């Protein structure tokens, strides 16, 4: 299947959440990351976070879904990297965004470099990074 992919193309936004405390408990269990800053309110307050915060990897997973949804059955995810910035807290809604910044033809197919980020409802950038998808053509 041939798909037209051009620089400047925006990926359809992916909206996740609002994130709940139950989501953080589920992600702790599924990932094995039981750091209490994500699940135990009193502990998170004690260490000065003001309350529990989401796992950075949960927000990264949301951005991963943005990419794999866009790739569909036509592309493989080759590279995916992010920096973690603003904290995400229960109640936050996360919008994942992506834009194709570069397209590189291959012998068969093409590489699409995509700039991604995830923002909270107040516009704080929780993660920001880049990814590469390899499309069949």
């Amino acid at each position, binding site marked *: 299947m041939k798909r037209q992919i051009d620089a400047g193309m925006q990926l359809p936004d992916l909206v996740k959440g609002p994130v709940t405390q139950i989501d953080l408990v*589920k992600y702790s269990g599924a990932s094995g990351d039981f750091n209490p800053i994500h699940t135990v309110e009193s502990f998170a307050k004690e260490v000065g976070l003001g309350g529990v915060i989401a796992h950075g990897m949960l927000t990264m997973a949301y951005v991963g879904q943005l990419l794999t949804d866009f790739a569909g059955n036509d592309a493989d995810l080759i590279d995916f990297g992010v920096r973690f910035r603003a904290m995400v807290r229960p109640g936050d809604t996360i919008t994942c965004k992506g834009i194709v910044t570069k397209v590189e033809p291959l012998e068969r197919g093409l590489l699409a470099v995509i700039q991604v980020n995830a923002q909270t409802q107040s516009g704080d950038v929780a993660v920001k990074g880049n990814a590469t998808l390899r499309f069949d053509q």
Partner: protein
Amino acid sequence: MATDFIGRWSTPVPNLVERGAVWKFAEAIGDPNPVYRDEVVAEQSRFGRMIAPPTFSRTFDYGTIEGFELQGEGLIHGEQVFHFERPIYVHEEVFCSTRVADTYTRDGGSGKMTFYLFEQKGQSTSGELIFTAKVNVIQRVGGAS
């Protein structure tokens, strides 16, 4: 500070990619993609079988590096980078190892901060490279935040 551990790979640890674990992970991240759950749909997909979501490899055990232990508290995950040679398949065994590629300490506004750069890799039972990852972790030393 002893830095003898830099560059030394951990002994690879086998991690079985269990169907139920992948299912629970996909549920936890709220991703309804059937390639993570539905054998029939996954077989018709480009992957030919069920796979795990791209960030699933963070759940693996990468073993221990001789002479190195990181305290769990006060750690901040700064950066995470994955490179995939292919997806991780459900039911396969992935041999995972890690090393500290670099570490250094800087004075920050609220005390000293130690930076660790970990490299990780996952290989199939036949030694084929499946993925590599880079993880940046920051540890605040002494300064309460």
